[in-house]
């Protein structure tokens, strides 16, 4: 390397394409949640944000445990199909 040449400096900023992928991924979970009906969507969001279990959710929303499970399971299946189309 000649004296006049600048030493290479690593650019540690995230690569543009990985930022795009993150942004896409982030947008996708929000978009996919929005495709769900309101009840399963709220139940899934509450489970995630507040750490509620099936039993706690069913008590809080005052529905039988089995009903809560089938709402959420249907929601999760739809969410998965939306997050991973083609599977």
């Amino acid at each position: 390397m000649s004296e006049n040449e600048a030493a290479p400096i690593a650019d540690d900023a995230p690569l543009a394409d990985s930022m795009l992928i993150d942004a896409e991924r982030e947008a996708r979970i929000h978009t996919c949640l929005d495709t769900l009906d309101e009840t399963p969507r709220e139940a899934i969001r509450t489970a995630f944000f507040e750490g509620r279990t099936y039993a706690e959710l069913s008590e809080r929303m005052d529905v039988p445990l089995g009903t809560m499970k089938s709402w959420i399971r249907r929601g999760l299946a739809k969410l998965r199909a939306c997050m991973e189309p083609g599977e």
Partner: protein
Amino acid sequence: MTPDQTLAAEYALGLLEGEELLAARAREAADPAFFAEVVRWQEHMAPLADAIAPRTPRAEVWQRIEAVLAGNSGIAEVVLLRRSLRRWQWAGGLSAAAAVILAIVAIPQVFGPAPEPSGITIGPGLTQPPMAANMPIESTPLRLDLTYLPDAQSLLVGAVGLESDGVHDHELWFVPPEGRPVSLGVVTPGRVVTHSVPDKVARSLETGSRLVLTREPLGGKPALSNAGPVVAETRLAAI
């Protein structure tokens, strides 16, 4: 979705409790495909956590903390801790509430005279942080889940998936840096069991303490024999 995929999603989201939770946890440890599915769901959901703005925990959070600290059973503490821990692990943006639960359980003295909601007193609960360890068992996909609650001098030994061969039992030992190993009891296959820990062991247990598992005749090591072969070992870590 297959039933497995559904279970993985429910587990990743923290919907399960009791038997189902224990079963899913054992699957996660033993089944790479199941584990991958759980990770995939965590990655799908993680960006949601980025959207949470820091905020003051709801009053209800204090009540739950208080209920835990007043502590009726060790199991409740561990379940809540694990749940908090899982939330802690969700990507970077963790909620203020989870942080507070962890902080209070781990270092309650910091909160000393901090403002408490009226009518709520912090119980005599935890003063020392729990410790935990996984103990994978040699040449099997199985492991023991160990959680030590110093204040209760209780070691929760989860041996889900382990089956008795009808000829042997497994015995758990604390191996002090000096001196002879001390038995912490015989493991109950397929169950989560609370073992009480002798005083002198309780005083010595700390992060890095070595625990080993030996294979013994049914009922544990006979008084006059040497301990059987060591089949697993681990060290405790603070959680």
